[in-house]
C-alpha cells in the first residue's frame, strides 16, 4: 500500500508542477501586464520602472527559476494590482467557496447515490423512469440557467430567499441547490449504471440462490462491488463542482475564488491568477488522488498490481 501511495503521490506532484510551468509560460507570453495595469498615457520610463520593479524585464527562464524557488518556500508572489501577497488574497476568498462546494457536495452525495441505487433496484418501473428523466434534465440544464430560474421562482416570485450576496445562511440555499442538483443528476445516472452492472453478475445470483434475502444480497454483494465506479464518478463530480462554482458564484454574487478569478484575469494580475490556477489544479489533483487511494482501499487487486 505504501508503494502504491508513493507512486500516486509522485504522479500528482508531477502533474501540479506541469500545470504550474504551463500557466507561468502561457501567461507571460500572452501580454504585458504593465500595459494593462498602468494608465494609457504612462511614459516609457514609468513602464520600464514597473517592469523592473516586478522583475518582468528579466529573461523568462530567470523569472521562472525565481518563481519556482519562492514557491518552495510557500511564497506565491505579490499581487500586481495592490502589492498584497497573492496567497493572502486567494486564501481570504477561499472559505466562501469551500462552504459553497462543501454543502453542494453533501447534497450530491445525499441525493445522487441513494437516487441512483433506488432507480437501479426499480429498473424499468415508473420510479426509475421519472428519476432518469429528472437526471437528463439536470444534466442538460446549465448552472446559470438553473440559477436564474431558481432566482425567478424563489427570490422574485415567492420572495422566500435572497437572490444575491452572502450575509446570512439563507443566502447559501439557492447557490448550493444550483450547484448540487446538477452534480447529483450526473452521480445518480452513473450510480444506477454501476449498480445495474453488478446486479447482472453471477455471484449475485449465486448469493440469492444460496438463500440470502434480497436485502442482504444488495448490502453484502451489490453495493460493495458497485462502490468503485461510484467512487470514480463522485471524484469526477468534485471536479465538476469546482468548475461549476465559478459560474454559480457569478450568478449569485457569492464572494468566493471563482469570482476572484474572473476579476483578476481581467487585470492580468499574474501572481494571483497563477496562485488561483494552482489552487484549482491542486484541488482537482487531490480529488483524483483520493479516488485512486480509495480504489486501493476498496479493491486489493489494484493495490497489488501497482
Amino acid at each position: 500500500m505504501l508503494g502504491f501511495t508513493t507512486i500516486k503521490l509522485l504522479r500528482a506532484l508531477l502533474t501540479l508542477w506541469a500545470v504550474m510551468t504551463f500557466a507561468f509560460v502561457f501567461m507571460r507570453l500572452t501580454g504585458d501586464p504593465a500595459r494593462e495595469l498602468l494608465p494609457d498615457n504612462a511614459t516609457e520610463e514609468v513602464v520600464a520602472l514597473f517592469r523592473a520593479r516586478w522583475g518582468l524585464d528579466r529573461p523568462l527562464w530567470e523569472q521562472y527559476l525565481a518563481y519556482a524557488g519562492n514557491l518552495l518556500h510557500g511564497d506565491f508572489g505579490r499581487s500586481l494590482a495592490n502589492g498584497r501577497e497573492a496567497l493572502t488574497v486567494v486564501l481570504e476568498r477561499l472559505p466562501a467557496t469551500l462552504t459553497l462546494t462543501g454543502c453542494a457536495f453533501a447534497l450530491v452525495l445525499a441525493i445522487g447515490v441513494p437516487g441512483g441505487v433506488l432507480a437501479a433496484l426499480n429498473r424499468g418501473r415508473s420510479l426509475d423512469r421519472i428519476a432518469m428523466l429528472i437526471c437528463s434534465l439536470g444534466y442538460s440544464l446549465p448552472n446559470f440557467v438553473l440559477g436564474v430560474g431558481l432566482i425567478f421562482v424563489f427570490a422574485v416570485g415567492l420572495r422566500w430567499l435572497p437572490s444575491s450576496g452572502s450575509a446570512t445562511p439563507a443566502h447559501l440555499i439557492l447557490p448550493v441547490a444550483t450547484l448540487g442538483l446538477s452534480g447529483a443528476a450526473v452521480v445518480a445516472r452513473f450510480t444506477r449504471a454501476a449498480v445495474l452492472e453488478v446486479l447482472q453478475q453471477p455471484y449475485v445470483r449465486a448469493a440469492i440462490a444460496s438463500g440470502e434475502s434480497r436485502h442482504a444480497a444488495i448490502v453484502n454483494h451489490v453495493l460493495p462491488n458497485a462502490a468503485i465506479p461510484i467512487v470514480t464518478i463522485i471524484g469526477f463530480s468534485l471536479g465538476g463542482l469546482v468548475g461549476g462554482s465559478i459560474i454559480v458564484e457569478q450568478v449569485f454574487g457569492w464572494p468566493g475564488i471563482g469570482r476572484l478569478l474572473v476579476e483578476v484575469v481581467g487585470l492580468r494580475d499574474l501572481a494571483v491568477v497563477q496562485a488561483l490556477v494552482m489552487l484549482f489544479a491542486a484541488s482537482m489533483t487531490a480529488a483524483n488522488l483520493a479516488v485512486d487511494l480509495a480504489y486501493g482501499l476498496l479493491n486489493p487487486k489494484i493495490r497489488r498490481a501497482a
Partner: protein
Amino acid sequence: MSANPADIARPAIGLRWPTLPPVAVAVSLAWIALVVAVAVIAPLIAPYDYAEQQPLLRLRPPALLGHDNPFLLGSDHLGRDVLSRTLYGVRFSIVVALFGTLLGAFIGISLGMLAARLRGWWEESIMMLVDMQASLPFIVLAITAVAFFGKSFWLLVLIVGFAGWERYARLTRGLVLDAETAGYANAVRVLGGSSWRIYLRHILPNIVSALIVQMTINFPEIILLETGLSFLGLGVQPPLTSLGLLVSESRNYIALAWWMAAVPGAVIVLTTLSISLIGDWLRDMADSRLR
C-alpha cells in the same frame, strides 16, 4: 422475505436507459434539425435585425401571450426583439459548438493514434498532457485564455475545441491498441500495407462508432461551456449575441421580463437534452463495451 432472482437480477438490455421510447428520440432529432436549420437561415427568418433597438418598446411581454405589441416573444431592455436575438444566438452558439467539437475530435483522435503508434516517450508525453488537462477544470483555462488573448470568434472556437480533446485521445489510444491485436490489422501488415493505410483505412472505420458516441457526449458539454463563457462576458462581443449572453443579459431584468431568460434558456436546455437523448440511443445501439 424470500428472494426472487428474477427480481433482483433483471437482465439489463438498454444499459443506461430504461428502454427509450423512440418517440423521444424522434422528437429530439426533429428539434436538432430545426436548430441546425435556424442556424443556417437565421438572417432570412428573423423578423427584426438582432441589434435593432426600439427604445419606446422596451421590456414588452410576448405578443404570443396576447399582449399588444409587435414582438412575438417580447422585447429586451433596449427594445430589441427577443425572438430575432435568440435565432441569431442559436446561429452563433451552434456554429461555435460544431467547429469546437470537430476540432477537439481531430486533435484528440490524431494524438491518440500517435500515442498508440509511436509508444515509448511519445506516448508518455501525450498521456501526461492528457493528465494535465484532466487536472484543471477546463473553464479556468478558458477564462484565463480569453482574458489574456482578447475576445474573438476563432479564439472561442479554438478554446472550446480544446475542451474534451483528452477524452478522445484516451479513448482512441485504448481502442487502437485493442485493434492492433485484432487479426485484421496484422493481416494488412503482413500483406505489406503501410501503417498509414492500416490506421486510416482499417482501424479508424472500426472504431468510428465509439468516437461518434463520444462526440454526442462532448457536443452538449461544449454548448454548455460556450454559453457559460458568454454568460461570464468572455464569449461574443455585444451587440453580436449567443444563447449564453442572452441569459446573462436577462439577469438584471428577471423581475420585469422573465421572457428574456426563458426563451434562450429553454432553447439551450432543449438542445443539450436532445443531443444527450440521441447519444444515449446511439450508445444503446452500439456495443456494450462503449459505456
